[in-house]
């Protein structure tokens, strides 16, 4: 199971009927992006900045599509004002957030936003859960999607750096 969670995440997205997957790439999402990209029934939307994915989610839901945003934690900082739209309109979205700036971080520039990710999301009305172990990722993602689309609100799953492996800048 340990390194197989991206495939499990992909299966959860399929099972929950997610159609639009928006993304600013992160190494932690590499496998999931590849799986979604090669699925002709999913629409992968490559973004220039993460807030585009929040606005895309609004349009997707208006049109009857479920969407997820794949982002690194630094990208949450780019989303703050746009998240107000989801809160005020009770529009669902699940964000799958790979963490930087926590366990074992090498790059000091990642730390402030890494520390702020959870409080910023919560202040904007997003329900946040966090996976610290590989075997938690898939069930927590399923829960985050269910809450979002059954109760009409944005949710986020933070995927901890310890389970992703900290980037070492040595390779």
């Amino acid at each position, binding site marked *: 199971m340990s390194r197989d969670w991206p495939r499990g995440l992909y299966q959860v997205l399929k099972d929950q009927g997610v159609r639009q997957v928006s993304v600013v790439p992160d190494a932690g999402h590499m496998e999931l992006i590849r799986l979604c990209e090669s699925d002709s029934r999913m629409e992968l939307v490559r973004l220039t*900045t993460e807030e585009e994915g929040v*606005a895309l989610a609004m349009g997707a839901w*208006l049109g009857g599509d479920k969407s997820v945003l794949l982002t690194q934690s630094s990208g949450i900082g780019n989303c703050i004002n746009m998240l107000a739209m989801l809160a005020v309109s009770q*529009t669902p979205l699940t964000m799958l957030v790979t963490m930087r700036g926590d366990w074992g971080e090498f790059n000091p520039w990642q730390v402030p936003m890494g520390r702020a990710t959870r409080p910023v999301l919560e202040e904007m009305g997003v329900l946040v859960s966090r996976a610290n172990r590989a075997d938690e990722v898939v069930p927590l993602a399923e829960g985050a999607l269910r809450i979002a689309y059954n109760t009409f609100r944005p949710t986020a799953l933070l995927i901890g750096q310890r389970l992703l492996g900290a980037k070492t800048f040595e390779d």
Partner: protein
Amino acid sequence: MSTAKQEGSGGKLHRREVVKILLADRGGMLVVAGLGAPAWDATEAGDHPLTLPLWGGMGGAAMIGLGLAIAQPDRRVLVLTGDGEMLMGLGSLATIGARGTRNLAVVVLDNERYGETGMQATHTAYGVDLAAVARACGFAACTTVTTMDEVARLRGDVHTAAGPLFAQVKVDADKLPLVLPPRDATHLKNRLREALLGPKAHF
């Protein structure tokens, strides 16, 4: 219709006349109206359940349109927004251009001003050419519109042309009376979903 009414005091197009033409006989077209004047313009043309007027989310109008266009490939989607709003989301033009979407049109009502905050100049007042940006991003058709004849042609293209389509319509910077749409976002969202999806919108 007199020529005077079609022009604002600066001699460019009158934004409300432009929007009235663009939204005439709209059929099943879905409309996203960017915050500020474009939302008031769309409301004066006729508040409509298939219009989402925005009261926030600045920079996001075109991306909302993209999400809608992907979800509803058999509908035409029109994003009507302002130059300030579009400038805040310039990256979304690259996102839309890179992806390509046949049923999406983005029309910028360009008065070269931030109209809600005191008519301060935007970058388009200093020569930034939004239609050229859209063209460089790979939009299928891009145009700058300065006459009502071109507006009438644009209305047809919005309904039929293979997109993504981009138009920059040069309009006057007149401060017009506010015509406000409903501002409860949950209501606006639910009424559009219900009009589009029927009863399953609520399940």
